[in-house]
């Protein structure tokens, strides 16, 4: 996967070290360096500090109190809605991400064989990935699964009496999952590119050995595609944890009905910007960051057992 590529080794230097180049490097890098410090690093440290305080935006800095681990303690022991939001987020990611990837892979396999019209289908399937993250589409989605929405119209054709799904705590999160799965196009495009890389010879060799379609998929396609599956899995999981817009629109920023769409980031937003408990929100942000780091690390350490690299070059 791309993320682990280091910069290519510099060629052996033909002449004396060019000092001007070293300076130029930092000149070109300076906007990025300033951004790294001012927009990323310093805010991160500030956030770490704030997570040990009771800071809200209203009190002056001189009156901010150091509260030690109180925010973290509260989060882990005394805040049921925090754990509820963790559950909502995990449920969402655990169901929506595998289904989305399965849809992406399935459609990619259908599209993979070269024939006319692939480009058109690929484009149409990709369109939802461009539109799906917007407020506008979330609005459409919520109405589609509301009482008079298109989904219930469809059900009524089969004589089924629908209900306002988005107002039902048992179903609201599911409608958001469907919205996520609807955007299967982006991972599909990446799968398609991966499928093109599988050498035809492998399929031909498998045919000679008498392998049927399923065995070829199991023994050739899946292992050869595993680096791409891995890439999509990491990316989509991290994205899935950050779902915010649709949950905000569905619940008008509350996480309702009955906290059923209280995604982690929405909870963080409400804590920090509605309740103004910015110290507590900072603690939430840090736990979120650590959780994502741990999950990514778990992916990478288990990847060794199922991600197959055809040769050293992909690593």
């Amino acid at each position, binding site marked *: 996967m*791309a993320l682990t*590529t*280091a*910069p290519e080794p510099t060629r052996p230097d033909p002449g004396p070290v060019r000092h*001007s*180049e*070293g*300076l*130029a*490097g930092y000149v*070109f*890098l300076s*906007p*990025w360096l*300033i*951004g*790294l410090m001012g927009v990323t690093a*310093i*805010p*991160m440290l500030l*956030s770490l500090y*704030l997570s040990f305080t009771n800071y809200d*935006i209203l009190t002056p800095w001189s009156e901010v109190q150091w509260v030690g681990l109180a925010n973290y303690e509260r989060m882990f022991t005394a805040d049921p809605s925090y754990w509820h939001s963790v559950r909502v987020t995990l449920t969402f990611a655990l169901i929506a991400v595998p289904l989305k990837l399965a849809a992406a892979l399935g*459609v990619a396999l259908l599209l993979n*064989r070269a024939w006319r019209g692939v480009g058109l289908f690929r*484009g*149409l*399937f*990709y*369109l939802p990935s*461009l*539109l799906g*993250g*917007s407020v*506008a589409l979330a*609005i*459409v*989605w919520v*109405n*589609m699964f509301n009482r008079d929405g*298109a989904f219930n119209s469809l059900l009524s054709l089969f004589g089924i009496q629908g209900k306002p799904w988005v107002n039902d705590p048992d179903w609201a999160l599911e409608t958001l999952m469907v919205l996520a799965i609807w955007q299967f196009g982006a991972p599909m495009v990446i799968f398609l*590119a991966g499928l093109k890389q599988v050498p*035809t010879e492998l399929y031909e060799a498998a*045919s*000679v050995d008498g392998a049927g*379609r399923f065995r070829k998929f199991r023994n050739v396609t899946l292992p050869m595609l595993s680096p791409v599956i891995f*890439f999509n899995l990491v990316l989509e999981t*991290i994205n899935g944890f950050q779902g*915010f817009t649709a949950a905000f*629109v569905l619940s*008008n920023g509350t996480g309702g009905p009955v906290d059923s769409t209280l995604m982690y*980031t929405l909870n963080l*937003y409400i804590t*920090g910007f509605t309740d103004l408990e*910015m110290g507590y929100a*900072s603690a939430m*942000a840090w736990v*979120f*960051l650590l959780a994502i780091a741990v999950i*990514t690390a778990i992916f990478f350490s288990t990847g060794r057992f199922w991600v197959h690299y055809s040769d050293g070059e992909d690593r």
Partner: protein
Amino acid sequence: MVVVTPTAGAPTGAGPTTRRRPGGRPVLRLLILVAIVAVVLYPLIWMVGTSVKSQEEIVNNIGLLPERFTPGNYTAGWSNFDVSFGRFFLNSAMVSLLTVVGNGISCLLAAYAFARLRFRLRGMWFAVMIGTLLLPSHVLIVPQYILFRTLGLVGGDWPYLPLLIPQFLATEAFFVFLMVQFMRGVPRELDEAARIDGAGPYGIFRHVILPLSRPALVTTAIFSFIWTWNDFFRQLVFLSQLEDYTVPVALTLFIDSTSQSAVGPMFAMSVLSLLPVFLFFVAFQRMLVEGINTSGIKG
């Protein structure tokens, strides 16, 4: 199912026969694909259809298209709030276009340093840049808000600075990475030739890398525009005055007014807000699809 036994030594793709491998039945596959397209496009068509239905038809007509075409939702939605949607569209366009400029310049500079120049700690900075790729923006929003507010930039005379400053400082690591990958494909012999002609690092950037990086710049520009146009989280946090609102933030005002009569206008404005993204999609479809390929998988 047809099993084609490959002839020994036949080059792959030599003729149509080698392509007719198992997995045949193209008609069935086409039917499945068309069915999936219908499911995928249904919400979009329903959205457009509803936006031109009268209030009465929205409730009673379950068909996709209206019996009577009602464009009134568009004019009603346009002036539904004290500030017209024209203003919101201008605000969104300004933020998106300036983000395109900022990302283009700052990410290109950083990418050139990473891809071509040798300087101390380059490997470490590159690793840091890759590390920030996976950093969720939600984690930084609270301290960034506090810092920008302390600097007097939140709700100031021009409240878009907190949205734009990071974009001029190459904080979108994704684009830096995309450009680094692209520049690695530019032959180093061109640098050498320019160097022999007496060009230094700045000259090489100006006369070799900049002109050759146009495809990467275009990809960056398109994605920057679409992502910023669709972005909601940061704009929600940093914009507080109605006249400063961008389109996504303004759209959420419709949700507050829960009255049923707002559904038509709300859909009309939703359609309008997606229109620029859709036009980009139509114009640059191939490039967008290739874009996530080159950047997603190793270049």
